[in-house]
């Protein structure tokens, strides 16, 4: 448990306003937002209620049957049928971190579900020194398009740690899945195993630094298959490339169903008025998420329709650029009391869930995006969603059918106005958006894709052996 002093520090830090935070009236442990005196010309980050100041305990992993009410018995049965022929065969997943980040979060749910289906799945994490992770971080940025001077030393560090891990790890499973570039060199163990080797790339390779990609490519080409999160992220490779969309877990804190009373309580804690329309963007305070553009769009829309804007995010307390963006957002927001800015700690999944559910419209006006899982979360909650047509968002939002795509502040403002004044249309695209997620972007669909891939590779192996 944290001390009160530690809690206070976290509260100040999380709110990104340590030097500015005024003494607020405390109502039953919740800092009342209306007690904050507004600084002329600049909005305040709302103080956080005490309930969010410490991380909640981890929730237990769901069982397959827990998903039955969501995807239906037929789909659960389908997963069991798919797994039946793979019974006893095993999978190894290898990545570079056990906690934090989307890949670890996904593996934490995927591994138990595959094992429950009697496809034992082992998860190993590679080890390395700071020098290795500095190199792989630089590789990551370079593969996303940043320029990078690939030195001989960086190559040697990368190869040395891959060799160390190769010697340490055993590969006795029928399918080995290597996640992302950090452990890509483990493929050198391929000849010692009968396994099918798969490279699962979670990052956007559409515009990589050529030197880094040319260094990694010979490794990738030795795999039996590669998997990408979007068609546009893939490269021309001589091996089959599959499309696995990222996914959300409908039973996680971020996405599980919540009673209305719980949603109301969270809104009360943050000073969000549910009697009036709520437009929300959930994202880090990052320029690529364009939170300032969202404020401008809201202000344009508000000339015509009454609404509040909630900007719920994080990253301002541990990232200097995030803090700067938060200041820009506050300046853009000005004195408008209907703009609610929340700088939340990373463990506030439950509160984000409630805020998304309380929202009338969800916006994700990104200028550049990976896949955009906040869009997936909003669609899953049946929310009419307005989003930038970038990255993986068009895979999720079919314009006018499962949401609306926008390309500018003005377009975003118009769509907010339109959706707020056409609730039937908003409801219809919200419902279609939820179905689209149910079909394509849930954890159970991801389990199905892994089982299908395993079957396809096993069949290919059997055909090869027969020849």
């Amino acid at each position, binding site marked *: 448990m944290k001390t009160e002093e530690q809690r206070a520090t976290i509260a100040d830090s999380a709110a990104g306003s340590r030097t500015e935070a005024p003494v607020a009236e405390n109502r039953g442990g919740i800092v009342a937002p209306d007690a904050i005196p507004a600084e002329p010309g600049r909005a305040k980050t709302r103080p956080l209620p005490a309930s969010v100041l410490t991380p909640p305990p981890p929730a237990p992993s769901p069982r397959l049957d827990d998903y039955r009410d969501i995807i239906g*018995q*037929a789909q659960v*049965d389908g997963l069991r*049928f798919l797994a039946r022929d793979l019974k006893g065969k095993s999978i190894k997943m290898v990545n570079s971190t056990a906690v934090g980040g989307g890949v670890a979060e996904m593996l934490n749910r995927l591994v138990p579900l595959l094992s429950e289906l009697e496809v034992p799945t082992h998860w190993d994490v590679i080890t390395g020194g700071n020098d290795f992770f500095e190199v792989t971080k630089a590789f990551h940025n370079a593969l996303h398009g940043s320029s990078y001077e690939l030195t001989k030393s960086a190559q040697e560090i990368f190869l040395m740690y891959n060799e160390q891990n190769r010697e340490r790890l055993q590969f006795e499973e029928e399918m080995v899945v290597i996640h992302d570039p950090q452990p890509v060199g483990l493929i050198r163990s391929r000849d010692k195993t009968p396994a099918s080797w798969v490279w699962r790339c979670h990052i956007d390779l559409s515009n990589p630094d050529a030197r880094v990609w040319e260094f990694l490519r010979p490794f990738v080409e030795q795999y039996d298959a590669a998997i990408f999160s979007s068609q546009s992220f893939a490269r021309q490779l001589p091996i089959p490339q*599959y*499309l696995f969309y990222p996914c959300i877990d409908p039973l996680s804190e971020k996405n599980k169903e919540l009673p209305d009373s719980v949603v109301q309580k969270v809104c009360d804690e943050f000073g969000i008025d549910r009697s009036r329309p709520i437009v929300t963007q959930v994202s880090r305070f990052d320029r690529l998420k364009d939170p300032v553009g969202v404020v401008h769009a809201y202000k344009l829309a508000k000339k015509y329709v009454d609404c509040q804007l909630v900007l719920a995010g994080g990253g301002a307390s541990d990232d200097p650029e995030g803090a700067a963006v938060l200041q820009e957002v506050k300046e853009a927001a000005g004195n408008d009391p209907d703009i609610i800015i929340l700088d939340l700690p990373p463990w506030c999944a439950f509160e984000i869930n409630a805020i998304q559910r309380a929202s009338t419209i969800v916006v994700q006006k990104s200028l550049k995006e990976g896949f955009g899982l906040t869009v997936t979360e909003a669609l899953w909650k049946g929310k009419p969603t307005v989003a930038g047509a970038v990255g993986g968002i068009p895979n999720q939002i079919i314009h006018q059918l499962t949401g609306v795509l926008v390309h500018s502040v003005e377009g975003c403002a118009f769509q907010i106005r339109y959706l707020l004044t056409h609730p039937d249309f908003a409801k219809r695209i919200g419902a279609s958006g939820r179905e*689209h997620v149910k079909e394509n972007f849930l954890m159970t669909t991801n389990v199905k894709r892994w089982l299908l891939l395993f079957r396809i590779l096993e069949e290919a192996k059997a055909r090869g052996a027969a020849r």
Partner: protein
Amino acid sequence: MAMADEHPVRKPNKPFYFNTSENLLRIGRQKAISVFELWQALQTCPDDSIFQHTFRTLQDHHFIRQGFSNDFAHWCLSACNEPVLAEQLASVDVREFTDVQGLRRRMVGIVDEFLQQHPQSGTKLAHEPFYFCAASIVVLPTQFAPDTLPGFVDGLRHVSLHSIHHHFIEARLRLHRMSNDFSNWLEQEVGLTQAAESIERIDIYTNTMEGVRHQIATIVEQALN
């Protein structure tokens, strides 16, 4: 609405085996960044790419009642801003085809004619490329293998929508005739000719797949009664 069948309902000689199919999407090597490139790629892409972007995508978007027919039409509208071409491509009913080659020829023909009439539209760059994909398909059994009509309706109501798509839409590529597995079984095994015809006439483009399921079940129940 199903009319009463003139022939008596008979006990089926063999059960209806409800199967389902699952697919894994492969990213293809071809892409198009203009209508002209689409026309070129449509002629050379693998059959399973044509299948994916027409038959399969209907399943992927089974919950949309109107406004979505195939990926080519959608891309021509959303990425190329060519509503005329989009409407023409969208008007193609995949159920008119019993092989992919015929469907490919129709698609190529539509784009070809459009390019002749609107040559300036051919090389205009799209907002985003069209990536040709294809699906690896695995057909799986389900627990439903009814040998009575009430059992058939029960299975119909419980199988996944993927199973409905497999038997109702994809079947014509397997059967190579203008029919579907449900109508085929009802006609050949049970003697419900008119119910089989009514089912074949269900409009898949103005219904969700759930709506299709409901209509098929209703037609068979009416025939039963």
